[in-house]
């Protein structure tokens, strides 16, 4: 069984909700990333979304844009992420890892090569922000045959018709984008989210995870009431940005941000 499915089935049995942190790999420098990942797990992460830095992150707000810039300045490449995941897997064989990013770096190294490398490194899922299911004909089967989950986004603007298609193609979990906007934008509206998740429940058994606009324990707990998982990115990346000159302090800060959310969600 794919680690993502395994993890969600455990959570379901325990009656708990998934906490899914996002960080950009290579931010503030590649040598810190694996340590950050372990720290996130210690603070209660159930799945880790590892961002692939890209020169043109069109769906991201300034916080993650700058994270990409820092990571790229340090020369972080997609193939370096594979090494990071391998290293992480030496001591953690259970926490699912999802690579999240844009299509061009994958396009450039080739879909098959990418799928091979990701599978052998110990990646569990792939979320390509600018690749809706309609454009996934080619890469989809390559991921599937290697037991890599293709994770797709659903947005507030997604029609029911589209949502049904996305549900049919999606694996691992559905990533519900809580608001119209880029990452790190305004705070979400939990009632609005609940309203949008309801019809999705009727379309799929996939866990429904919610991202964009979750910044603290309170918002995380609110969303956890209606969703199966909570995804937090900019709130963590902000801490990395603030302490980029004191990188040894970052892991501790990430832990405290995440632990606060974990506590609030489990209360």
């Amino acid at each position, binding site marked *: 069984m794919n680690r993502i499915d395994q993890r969600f089935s455990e959570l379901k049995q325990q009656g708990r909700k998934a906490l899914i942190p996002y960080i950009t790999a290579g931010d503030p420098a590649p040598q810190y990333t694996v340590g950050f990942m372990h720290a996130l797990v210690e603070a209660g992460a159930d799945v880790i979304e590892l961002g692939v830095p*890209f*020169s*043109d*992150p*069109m*769906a*991201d*707000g*300034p916080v993650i*844009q700058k994270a990409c810039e820092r990571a*790229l300045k340090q020369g972080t*490449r*997609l*193939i370096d992420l594979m090494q990071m995941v391998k290293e992480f897997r030496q001591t953690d064989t259970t926490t699912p890892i999802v690579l999240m990013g*844009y*299509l*061009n*770096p*994958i*396009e*450039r*190294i080739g879909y098959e090569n990418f799928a091979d490398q990701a599978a052998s490194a110990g990646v569990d899922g792939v979320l390509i*922000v*600018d*690749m*809706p299911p*309609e*454009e996934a004909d080619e890469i989809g089967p390559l991921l599937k045959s290697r037991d890599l989950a293709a994770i*797709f*986004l*659903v*947005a*507030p*603007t*997604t*029609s029911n018709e*589209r949502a049904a298609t*996305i549900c049919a193609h999606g694996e691992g979990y559905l990533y519900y*984008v809580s608001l*119209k*906007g*880029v990452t790190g*934008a305004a705070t979400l509206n939990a009632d609005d989210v609940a309203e949008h998740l309801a019809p999705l429940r009727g379309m799929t058994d996939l866990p429904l995870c919610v991202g964009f606009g979750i910044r603290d324990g309170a918002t995380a707990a609110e969303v956890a009431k209606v969703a199966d998982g909570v995804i937090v990115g900019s709130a963590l990346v902000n801490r990395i940005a603030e302490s980029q000159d004191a990188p040894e302090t970052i892991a501790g800060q990430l832990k405290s941000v995440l632990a606060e959310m974990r506590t609030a969600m489990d209360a």
Partner: protein
Amino acid sequence: MTVSATPAPKTKFSDLTRMPDARGHFGPYGGRFVSETLSFALEELEKTYLSLRDDPDFQAEFDYDLAHYVGRPSPLYHAKRWSASLGGAQIWLKREDLNHTGAHKVNNTIGQALLAKKTGKPRIIAETGAGQHGVASATVAARLGLECDVYMGAEDVQRQKLNVYRMRLLGARVIPVESGTRTLKDAMNEALRDWVTNVDNTFYIIGTVAGPHPYPLLVRDFNAVVGREARRQSLEQIGRLPDALIACVGGGSNALGLFYPFVEDDDVAMYGVEAGGDGVETGRHAAPLASNAPRGVLHGNRTYLMSDEAGQVSDTHSISAGLDYPGVGPEHALWKDVGRVSYVAANDKEVLEAFRELTRMEGIMPALESAHALAHAKVLAPTMRPDQHIVVNLSGRGDKDIMTVAKIDGIEF
């Protein structure tokens, strides 16, 4: 000159008129690579456009605006003195520079503004490089009473101050973009971020034949008036079709506009001229087709895209802000592969020479973008006979570039 590395001579050029397919693909190129939030807006736009595309009332409204607001048809002008001095083929200039607002860009903004009106959205946004598309967007916004925000790379804001002020006079807000390379591609990123946030009330007027489906289709259609006129004018004024067409290629809208109505005329050769910057061999250029850049995905479509081995989009270099873009419209990518168009590059130095030459010999000051096409005419014409004919798309006028040229001449105002 770089010709296609993978020619597919079996593809009939008539097949090219049936592109894109229903999902916006031009062979392996094009498509709709966007984050989910925008999918709905693009589906809606596609539906609106396809319902109006063959609607006689919509076409009549478009044609009326082109005639009475833009001033179409634009002349096809025989540059006799310049042709004689080059000593070869006769050069004819398709005078898009004479359009209202000074470039071909307005053909597209008129069309998209009509679509915006139909969708009832009160606000438009646009990205711009040279500022011509921004000016054209601000112009139609002023005319329709729509709010207008234009994203422009901070470097281009510096290079194209005159157009920035023009946009402001027209009532638009110009938002300098400080991220990335601070040029056209970053302006487009920021416009997409705005659109994803304000998709309910905002119509995004993309300025070239790039972006996600249906933009490459509709921008091509709106600019194809250039080629339809040029074809008719050639028959009237030359007495036959020209032997060759030349247009500059940034995203590729003026080139497709001119080329498209000739695509099935196998005897008409076509040349798309990209920005060679310091020279394609130096790597400092903006010529994804002529340099055989790898395939990639940016701004919603798959195309030839300048990027490094890790897939990070490359910095581009060009004297001309309007061509300073690492990708190119997906239809051009296909036309390169099937060998319908030869894609070449002109470097900054050649472009400046052509700019000065046309200005001095014909009294026409071209945009630096258009001067790329002229630079290739300088190369091509002498290889042809005086009874042969070349139509060059003079996509815009050079007023906006006077500061840039003056600076090169060491003159400060």
